[in-house]
């Protein structure tokens, strides 16, 4: 794998860019692997990379039914933050943040991690108190956090609605300076390239249709490209976790729901941070290409369709104008949907399963992108050691039976309300 640098860019430019090689090898499946990872999204590719990089396990295949990065890693709104309240989440997402901070260098692929800061507006004294609690937890765990009053918010983001007609006046905000965005596709490609460079086979157009068992143990997978043997199988298939788990005989506390994203036409720099609207389900940031990227609430019913509906379209546009009345003339360029594995507490599942040889990474709800490196790191450790890493001890499948939910929103066991 040739290194990327400004010098390689210059060298190749001089020769008409004819000398560049494939970013990742186009691999054909071998008969068997030590570890087979199902799902060539961000989490699966990151897992493969860390298996090779940190654990020296290189006889690894990542099986992707379409093209890599075609699922949620390429459909999300690219926000990265570590402003979690609850024990377990706080540490996990901060660990992820630290991995983000070194990701481009580690992968030799610029994922454009831009720590431009994220703020969430507060619209009452009570809400600001709630945010202060969160900020206190963050600071006590060594994470940067600030609480801003109305004037400070106004100074930072003067284009928000500070007028008398604002329906929910801005009272203050919580701000995390290290939060930001990254180029989502680059994360998939960067992990793929680096993993491939370590010898991992990335196999696209290869759909897993069933599991191969020996006794109670899973020893491989049936695919559209034939049977592939596996010492261990790791599932990292985002919205389709239930579908695959069912083939292994597992019924999970997961529902698939639709989350939409929206992007406007590209404009010159306007929004320099990630801004979330505390009075509703809405947030936005500006991509490096210039489009404003909007996110909102779930569409609110079980869905495996990757296309959204008009209800959320209206809600998102209303909230956009409520937050920033100056973008009303800007035009939406595209909107699309991704399928979220929603869990009953909105926290993820990285877990051993009752099925020997099968490991589960799913239930990322709408928080999967920011978790990509830590998820890959921990899942790789779990696959390598067969043990649950300390950092994800709270993310076990058994927590719903025992009552150890990690419910940030307190919304309860209603996936569509989480």
């Amino acid at each position, binding site marked *: 794998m040739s290194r*990327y*640098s*400004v010098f390689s*860019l*210059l060298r190749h430019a001089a020769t*008409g860019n004819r000398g*560049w090689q*494939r970013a990742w090898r186009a691999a054909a499946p071998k008969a068997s692997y030590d570890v087979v990872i199902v799902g060539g999204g961000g989490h699966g590719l990151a897992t493969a990379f860390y298996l090779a990089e940190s654990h020296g396990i290189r006889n690894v295949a990542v099986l992707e039914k*379409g093209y890599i990065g075609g699922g949620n890693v390429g459909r999300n709104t690219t926000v990265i933050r570590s402003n979690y309240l609850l024990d377990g989440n*706080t540490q996990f997402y901060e660990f992820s943040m630290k991995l983000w901070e*070194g990701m*481009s260098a580690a992968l030799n*692929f*610029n994922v*454009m991690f*831009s720590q*431009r800061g994220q703020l969430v507006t507060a*619209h*009452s004294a009570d809400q600001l*108190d*709630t945010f*202060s609690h969160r900020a*206190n937890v963050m*600071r*006590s765990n060594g994470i940067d*956090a*600030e609480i801003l009053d109305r004037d400070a918010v106004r100074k930072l983001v003067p*284009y928000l609605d500070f007028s008398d*007609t604002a329906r929910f006046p801005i009272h203050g905000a919580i701000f995390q300076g290290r939060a930001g965005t990254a180029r989502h596709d680059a994360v998939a490609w960067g992990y793929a390239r680096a993993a491939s460079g370590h010898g991992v086979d990335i196999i696209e157009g290869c759909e897993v249709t069933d599991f191969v068992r020996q006794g109670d143990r899973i020893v491989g997978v049936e695919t559209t490209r034939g049977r592939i043997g596996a010492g261990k199988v790791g599932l990292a298939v985002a919205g389709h976790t239930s579908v695959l788990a069912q083939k292994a005989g597992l019924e999970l506390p997961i529902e698939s729901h639709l989350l939409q994203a929206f992007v*406007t*036409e*590209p404009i*010159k720099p*306007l929004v320099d941070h990630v801004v979330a609207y505390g009075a509703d389900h809405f947030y936005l940031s*500006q991509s490096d*290409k*210039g489009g404003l990227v909007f996110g909102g609430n779930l569409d609110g019913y079980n869905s495996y*369709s990757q*296309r959204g*509906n*008009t209800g959320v379209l209206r809600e998102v*546009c209303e909230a956009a*104008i*409520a937050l920033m*009345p*100056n973008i*009303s*003339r800007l*035009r*939406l360029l*595209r*909107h699309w949907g991704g399928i979220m594995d929603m869990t*009953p507490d909105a926290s993820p599942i990285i877990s051993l399963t009752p099925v020997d040889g099968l490991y589960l990474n799913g239930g990322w709800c709408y928080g999967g992108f920011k978790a990509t490196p830590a998820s890959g790191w921990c899942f790789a450790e779990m696959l390598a050691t067969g043990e649950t890493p300390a950092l994800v001890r709270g993310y076990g499948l058994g927590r719903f*039976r*025992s*009552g*150890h939910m990690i*419910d940030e929103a*307190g919304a*309860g066991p209603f996936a569509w309300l989480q």
Partner: protein
Amino acid sequence: MTPTEKRLASGGYLDRAQVLKFMFDGRQYSGFKGDTLASALLASGISLIGRSFKYHRPRGILSAGAEEPNALVTVGAGARREPNLPATMLELAPGLEAASQNNWPSLRFDVQSVNSLFSPLLSSGFYYKTFMGPSGRAWMFYEHSIRKAAGLGKATMMPDPDVYDSRDDFTDVAVVGSGAAGLSAARAAAQAGARVLLIEQDFEIGGRLLSEPAGAAWLSAMRTELEEMANVRIMRRTTAFGLYDGNTLALIEDADPFAGPAMNAGRKTFTLLHAQSIVFATGAIERPMVFSNNDRPGVMLNSAIRAYVNRYAVLPGRNVVIATADDSAYLTAFDLLAHGARVTIADARPLAEPTLLAKAKQMGAEIHLATNVADVKGKYALTGVVLAGKSGTTGVSCDLVGMSAGWSPVLHLTSHQGVKPVYRPEIDAFVPGQLPETQFVAGAAGGSLSVSAAVTEGTSAGRAAAAVAGKAGAVAEAPALEIEERAGPTTVYKPIFGQRKAFVDFQMDVTLDDIQLARREGYESVEHLKRYTTLGMGTDQGKTSNINALKVMAKLRGISIPEAGTTTFRPPYTPVAVGAVAGRATGHHFRPHRLTPIHDWHTANGAQMLEVGLWMRPWFFEASGPDVNTAYVNEMRHVRSAAGIMDISTLGKIDIQGPDAAAFLDRIYANGFASLKVGRARYGVMLRDDGIVFDDGTTTRLGESRFFMTTSTAKAADVLSWLEFLLDTAWPDLRVSVSSVSDEWAGISVAGPESVKILAAAFPEIDFSNEALPHMGLADGTFKDSPLRIIRLSYSGERAYEIYVGASNGGNAWRHLIDVGATYGLKPYGVEALGALRIEKGHVAGPEIDGRTTLSDLGMGRMVAKRSGYVGEALSRREAFQAANRQRLVGLKCTEPGKRLRGGALLFAPGEPLQGHGRGRMTSITYSPELDCYIGLGLLAADFEGDEVIASYPMKNEAVRARVVSPVFLDPAGERMHG
């Protein structure tokens, strides 16, 4: 050629009587009503319109429609500035001010056009390969400049002064597109008896017929017929931009700029159109050819040249090279020749229709077969082309190049719902796949490129669409439309490799080289190609580039076009203003306001109001103090020393009746209600199925089978739906009716030692003695002509009454109490004081009932000690809920003089490092005037030892000592309220 020579003396769909002056880049020009900005600029001799996204190359006008990738302008100024609008879709209107964009200092001398020199370095995805060092935050440094260079136009920073509308509409049949197919479909469906809505994105009806002089009479007759039919509505300037579930089309309509300042009309209108059936008659878009410098101003689609000549009466060039791989380009050549232009035809195919060739020759065209354009000369205006044929290359001088590489049906809408397009090799195009039974395609949108086919298919689609809506009236044959037409390629156009600066996606500056690079690096699936090169990601959504890119990739990979993939089209078809979708739900009306019956009194009497969900509630009263912190303490003191009055109308109220009402309550509340006596109230707590506390409130038994429940303000709607869910799905055998009466009753709380005197004076017919109306007792009555319900309940710990009176007399009852109570010192208080009073009594509220706490956590475990069969019981017995370190409700009292507690502080043991999540947290705090210190409620680990905590508040660098005490700070025996 001077501008006046470019405008033809006659013809076109122009109102030459209406001369419109407009501005472009600070200079004034003029055009006619019926022009677009693009046609008016062309007529004025302007062909350089803008700069490209990445290389800042000069760009002109490629098309005459929504597919335009190049001619993007910014319209308006100040708060009305709107960037990135295609000049080809901008209806020329009085006072239009447009400007070119993405250039500095000027359109002609753009500093960043230097980027073009470095194009090998700025190849697709170059940014993924660099900007990574030296420090970890290197990208943040480079990103600043990259962001500035990217983006197209500038958005305004000012709030939009215009209004928009967002609405819903219904029809039997929606017809999208008003060309020959759409008009025929609309007519047929209407004749069959259906309600028809015809949608046209242009300001003129007619679609491509507007470029066909021979179709004018047919078009005019058809338009008149439709306009006269009562069951046909026509929406012009309206784009159907998305197809959604339930046969819903999303439309965006521009206001008619000639309608004058309409009364309060929206600048744009967003419509969700719910149709029984839909006919897609959306036509087709011509594809550009890919050759070196094919992006130069003066290179146009052949169909666009026809539109400018015939519809807009503009002759964009007099010396024209027509490059084609398609017969339809000959029609362009004929039109140009007829207007005296010199025409050279470069047909990529070895053969063309002999009759076409003969006619072209006869009219004076020079024809080169098996010949492609290899290069274009001239930067801001064309000087010539290099033609490459079998015999080598030739230079030909020209001032305009037309090109056509075939047609792409506009199938975007049909694929929004996941119907995959299908490739038809004989027309070298994708057509819509199998559509649902309620959707139809007619004409070019389905790949039938001839006008006669459009009429036939339109008519049958219209008839079928009407039938879906149950309308099957007789449909007369459509009038014949006879025009010369040539369509369809005889060979598939293939881009020729090896050409430099041959653009595939004009707007995103993606060239043949970029696609080859992507392929080399393995980004070869169509989605990877798009994401890596940004192909198709522009405001034109790649309408002219998608198919060409697919062809290039297919050829590079040596596979067929369908094997290379298709592209997913996502809504919107054309960009849609965010404000239009929001409509009137902006500013003050973002969400509705909910007002209590006493609202006007509050605002007239110095209440500082607060948004609580949708409700407006008094936060505090100015008479109590200048700011909330002073005011609430004074209001608390007043309640405890005399009496306070509070508007509690926002509480959720539910009427529950039926023979099984008591049994029902016994299940939905964790604590028992069957034993509640008629005329008495009880505090109740509901759990969710998972054993977590859901809501609390009081319920009063009005009769043997009738109860009056109150819920928290926030959960009112959720609780009612939950009760209905249980009755409808789980326990349909219970005869119980539940109804919201939240709006029925105004709620007023009067609390304090003087409260009983005030009540007695206000309602003399009611006996307020302890015997007649004890704590938790009920009294009924009437006030004026409204019902009155008085329940003796206390949230503050003082003797208190909740007075519920029919909402129509809520304001009257409040004023009556204020008047009567004046003698006893009655004063109003707000939610801040209410929250503080309850803390002194240790009552839990929202901060404690946070969706994670159980009954035991909140110190109410003994309520259910002997019960079973209530909602949430089984899962409340889970292991985690019994854990020794489970956080439970405690009272906390600040023990450091001069210091205060804060909500959201973390609790630690003294001496413990103040790190991590702590042993608990402070949920609610207040200054207690009674105790003269800060007190709070908190959740603290049950296995915490000792009676002192450190309340750490890192955000203010505070760590304050507090004593762990009972949450009931005041009057634990309850003597005051029973008193």
